[in-house]
């Protein structure tokens, strides 16, 4: 028994290691593409840093300081060498290490993403199941209406409405939260409204997928057999149908996890919250090449991890899945 478990653990770990190894060339490819794309796009970081009254000499001096006057291939080789040693370089604008810039905002993005995800699944899954169970009933229509609203509402509009309701009218939260005070109570307070904003959108997505997936499963033969055998409805749903219905839900959640990190930008902007998405947009506007490259690689890495976690979760739900 113990030996079987040990074997299982080793096989999962080997699977993870293989997947991570395969990810390395992917990340290098992302790095290369981003590197050349951002430098080919028009826009001069030196001009942006020094402003429009800077002399040509000052601009030339800045370009030299930033290493931008060297041929692109030289810059690439130098950068590649740095990355392979684990150094993502320094931001062109702030001169801070890229990794420390990202590490500064990452906890906030992760907090927001995971909380929104948790809200999405915690509310969306049961709602979807209930909607499927009471198909075409009142509950179903209500749930579908809510889902459509959630999907159509732009994130920044709902964010402003939340602020108007909870910060201005009810005064339960400040408009600008002190996200970096270090005090956990403050952090939670600052997380509440943004997480609700993104979470409600997640609920809409998860609910739809859960509902349609559940409906599909409920129409299967084995469900009909279970019902014919007299198994109570509750057991049919929770014991037999759910596990099968979960697979598409896990897929969507896994896919959306990657997208959520970037999509959270609008929420981050309205709630004035630090985040990876906001940092990327800012770096793009400032043509901060090194910061952009570093963040793209880190972002790609997160997508790899998200996909990996999704696949591992399949293994948990579906015993037929054997990780080779």
């Amino acid at each position, binding site marked *: 028994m113990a030996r079987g478990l040990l074997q299982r653990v080793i096989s999962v770990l080997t699977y993870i290691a293989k997947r991570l190894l395969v990810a390395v060339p992917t990340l290098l490819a992302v790095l290369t593409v981003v590197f050349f794309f951002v430098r080919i796009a028009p*826009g001069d970081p030196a001009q942006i840093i020094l402003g429009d009254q*800077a002399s040509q*000499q*000052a601009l030339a001096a800045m370009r030299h300081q930033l290493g931008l006057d060297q041929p692109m291939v030289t810059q690439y080789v130098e950068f590649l060498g740095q990355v392979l040693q684990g150094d993502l370089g320094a931001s062109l604008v702030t001169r801070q290490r890229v990794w420390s810039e990202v590490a500064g905002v990452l906890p906030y993005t992760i907090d927001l993403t995971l909380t929104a995800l948790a809200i999405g699944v915690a509310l969306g899954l049961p709602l979807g199941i209930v909607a499927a169970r009471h198909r075409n009933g009142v509950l179903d229509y209500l749930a579908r209406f809510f889902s459509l609203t959630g999907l159509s509402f732009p994130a920044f509009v709902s964010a402003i409405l939340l602020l108007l309701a909870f910060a201005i009218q009810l005064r339960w939260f400040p*408009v600008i939260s*002190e996200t970096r005070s270090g005090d956990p109570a403050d952090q939670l307070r600052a997380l509440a409204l943004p997480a609700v904003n993104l979470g409600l959108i997640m609920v809409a997505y998860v609910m739809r997928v859960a509902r349609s997936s559940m409906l599909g499963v409920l129409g299967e033969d084995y469900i009909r057999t279970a019902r014919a055998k007299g198994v109570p409805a509750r057991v049919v749903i929770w014991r037999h149908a759910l596990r099968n219905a979960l697979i598409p839900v896990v897929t969507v959640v896994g896919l959306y996890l990657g997208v959520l990190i970037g999509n959270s930008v609008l929420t981050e902007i309205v709630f004035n919250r630090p985040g990876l998405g*906001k940092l990327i947009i800012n770096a793009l506007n400032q043509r901060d090449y090194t910061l952009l490259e570093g963040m793209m690689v880190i972002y790609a890495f997160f997508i790899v991890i998200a996909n990996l976690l999704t696949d591992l979760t399949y293994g948990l739900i579906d015993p037929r899945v054997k990780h080779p």
Partner: protein
Amino acid sequence: MKHGFILTAGAIIGGAWLAAAPAQAETVLNIGMQAQDMQALDPHKASTTPDKAIVGWMFNGLVRFKPGSMNPDTIEPDLAERWDTSSDLNTWTFHLRHGVQCNNGYGELTSDDVVFSLKRAADSKTSAYSSDFAGVDSFEAPDAYTVRIKFKQRPPNVLGLLTAYQSGNIVCKKAVEKLGDDFRTKAVGTGPFAYAEYTPNQSVVLTANKNYFRGAPKIDKIVYKYIPSDATRDLAYQSGEIDLIYGRQDQTWAERMQKEPHTVVDVFGPGELSDVNLNITKPPLDDLRVRQAIAYAVNRKELVKFKGELTAREAVSIIPHDYLGTDENAPLYPYDPEKAKQLLKDAGHADGIAIKAIQTQLSTMLNTMQIVQAQLKKVGIDLQLEVVDHPTFHAQIRKDLSQVVMYSAARLPVADVYLTQFFHSRSIVGTPTAVTNFSHCDMADKEIDAARGETDSVKQKALWKEAQDKLVQQVCAVPLYEQLQVWAHRDKLNFGYKLDASLTLGPLINELTTLQQ
């Protein structure tokens, strides 16, 4: 014995109660700015509006504009209490105040600091504004409280260059040397407020300099909050989390804020002038008649009406109005669409022409050009706008890729600066000495150069007038309107002076500013 005990107890309780009287609460001014983050507090590198505003509260210059004004005629002493010049006006000697303290514990300011700062500002490796001091021969410190500047090519307004603005801001030498790269975010000067704390993407905190040579500020702390979302900033003002807010250069915003209770809307200079620059070397714009047609087709009044008369005003010349040397009655072409059509016909374009322009997607600049486009269409000119993002726009126009360039700017309020940067042949884009001359105009070079060296101020102004009139007549650019700065504050904040203009683009907060609790 019993009485003694009661008396003692009473005295102790009474004493404790008196001692527990509330300590003076700190006066904190919360400000909301439209920015994602700080780029630089180092005054020789600060190039964005949000950064320039704070820099104005942290540094002094040898001289300064009167608070609330941008008039070069009323420049007054700042770090220097008096100055004298040689008879040829090429050597200026400034006598510094004694006992001015650098913030954050860096000791007394001496001529050593001033000369270090000026040299740093003149060095293209450490300053974005090095070209300001291109005409300087040497900076010297003959003694601890004297600074001597020798010019080989004296600028037309020496004092203007030495105000607490851009390269004129004086930094403390020991702080620069000690902090190195950190000086970018922890800059040290002698101003009424000093750097205290910086939280990336969130805020910068400044504390009052109690030893400020003009007197201790009445505000103890400034919290400058970075709030890029306009809606969020407005909500933060509504909820009382900020008391001074950077607005939008927008009539609707100003009108809405005017209706807010206990709120004062600040509309002040500089007016950033929007010019539509025309490249006179490329057909069809190489024909004066075509350029004149464009000038006649543009309706400035309509543009100002669209922008809002509260926050915008019509241009009076090819440089902003109220600068030293502006021709307030420049011969701008009036709105006359019929004449425009006639001129196009005369130039051989009876069927109309098409011109391409690279345009930024920044909404305030884009919507202006869309109106100009509509106005030009009425006379048969098809202005095709290629809309790109803002950094791309700035890069491409400097590569001379656009025949028509709509640019919006304010500069040091001396005609020479604007004329040189936008209309002198030395500044033509794509050349080694390029600045922002998109029109490739050179017909006023002689007048601009002569005015720069002219010591008689009447003759100088006449030369500047001649330069502007020539450039206007040749339609190197079509001036549109000037957009003023728009902020708002709660009426419990009093700046302490009348705010007509502020070169830093933000209100000056100094020792005179008060905030009622």
